[in-house]
């Protein structure tokens, strides 16, 4: 379980996130939604240890994230994130990008160098190829990612994050910039990550319709505060949400 306890984040005079608590259950898909400026990304940055929140704690896998280095957030607390804009290592191939997360623990000079085909190395390559296969990227495994399409790059980025073996994978607007059919396909793949591979997801999305179909639990933010929380069905009927976010028809 990923527990967010009373997070507030203040930038000068602006309180971007105001005392938000939430729990994301293991084995589930949790979505945080809200309009522009609702504090989604700020909250997300606090959750993934990217910002140090003004107050509050985030706890995952028995670790308080604010006390960990970036590498330990991924390695010990096992929380891995992606960004809204794609941050792949452009000159590296798709496979190299994924392998990087796969082999993060080893700073290998000799083993890999002398016995270029150690069993451990082969196993890592196999797992990395497995993730690429899951996203239908095997045929571009050896292509530098800079040459891939935007949709493919997005998938490589998620495959790479998965290779770091997170308990919680946090995705910041994974469908941003994708067309409706690509977006739908990606949501199916994300659902499979949790349902079949057991990796819990925490998603940020501004387009509620994208996540409605796959989320177990939805948290709605408005002006940095939690407006509502519940199952997709609850959220759809919540009068506050309808007023503030979906917009009344009148």
């Amino acid at each position: 379980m990923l527990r967010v306890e009373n997070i507030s984040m203040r930038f000068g005079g602006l309180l971007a996130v105001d005392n938000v608590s939430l729990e994301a259950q293991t084995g589930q898909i949790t979505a945080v939604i809200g309009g522009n400026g609702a504090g989604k990304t700020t909250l997300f940055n606090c959750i993934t240890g990217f910002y140090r929140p003004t107050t509050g704690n985030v706890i995952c896998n028995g670790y308080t994230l604010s006390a960990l280095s970036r590498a330990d957030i991924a390695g010990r607390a096992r929380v891995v994130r992606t960004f809204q804009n794609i941050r792949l290592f452009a000159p590296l191939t798709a496979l190299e990008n994924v392998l990087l997360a796969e082999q993060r623990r080893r700073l290998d000079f000799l083993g890999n160098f002398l016995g270029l085909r150690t069993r451990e190395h082969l196993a890592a390559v196999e797992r990395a190829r497995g993730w690429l296969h899951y996203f239908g990227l095997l045929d571009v495994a050896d292509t530098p990612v800079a040459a891939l399409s935007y949709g493919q790059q997005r998938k490589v980025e998620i495959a790479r994050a998965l290779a770091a073996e997170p308990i919680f994978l946090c995705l910041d607007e994974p469908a941003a910039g994708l067309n409706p059919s690509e977006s739908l396909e990606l949501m199916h793949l994300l659902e499979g990550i949790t349902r079949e591979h057991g990796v819990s997801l925490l998603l940020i999305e501004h387009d509620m319709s994208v996540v409605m179909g796959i989320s177990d639990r939805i948290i709605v933010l408005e002006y940095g505060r939690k407006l509502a929380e519940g199952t997709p069905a609850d959220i759809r009927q919540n009068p506050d949400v309808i007023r503030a976010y979906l917009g009344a028809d009148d």
Partner: protein
Amino acid sequence: MFEHAPALVYFSQQLLNGLTLGAIYGLIALGYSMVFSILGLINFAHGEIFMIGGYIAFLAVTLFLGFGLSPALVLLLTFTAAIIITSGVGFTLERICYRPLRGAAKLAPFITAIGASIFLQNAVQLWQGSQPKALAQFLTTQYELFPGLVISATQLLILGAGGLLLVLFTLLINKTSFGRQQRAVQQDALMAGLLGIHVNRVISATFMLGAALAAVAGTFVLLYYGVVDFTMGYLAGMKAFAAAVLGGIGSLPGAIVGGLILGLTETFWAGYIGADYKHALGFFVLILVLLLRPQGLFGKPEVEKV
């Protein structure tokens, strides 16, 4: 055929000498380029790391020759000692001088690098005295390939081992998981950290690797010229830096090619025109290249992000 063409023999001899010098510059230049590509820092203390490598090699050769070991064994032990100890110095330098300044203004580590360079130079002077250290006769065999064309055992070693090292190094960066991590940190250290890569370890390893290459270069210089002194890091460091910029700083093949170009230009200049201005020539070539191609031979033009 060579007997009848003294000009060709002379040219070949200069070429051989130039490649030897160029390999040494290339090895040092790699250290500049690697550190620059990962930290955006010109490590001006790198020339001193090279000088320390030369001193360690001098002490090691003297010590092991004293034991009456065979020359091959002395060489092996000397390289091992120089590489291990000098990498340790590189590691310590990064740890003490640069890591605490991570995230500080760009100028701060730059000034620190100059300070570290002065400190290391003076420390070695205090430790080993200000007189140059000359090596007793060691590895002075020469082979005459043709009448007039001579290659020394040291040159063979430098060209052979230096070339091998450059190939191994390229493989290390392009084929191993360490190399992959190094390239990733170079691209986007923040994202690499978020994927669980220990960025500081990769940086430490980069410094150690650069120092190890500099130690090999220092040992080569000791064997080639038979002498080390505590100021030798300054000029060699400046020239290797020029070589790295010439090739395109941050580019590893660029550093090697830049080193070779500089070594060859200097040697041919000295061989055909005269030893005057030999040291200035490298910088003249640098100025020319930068005028015509500011990013260096292999560098990518810097794109201003808006």
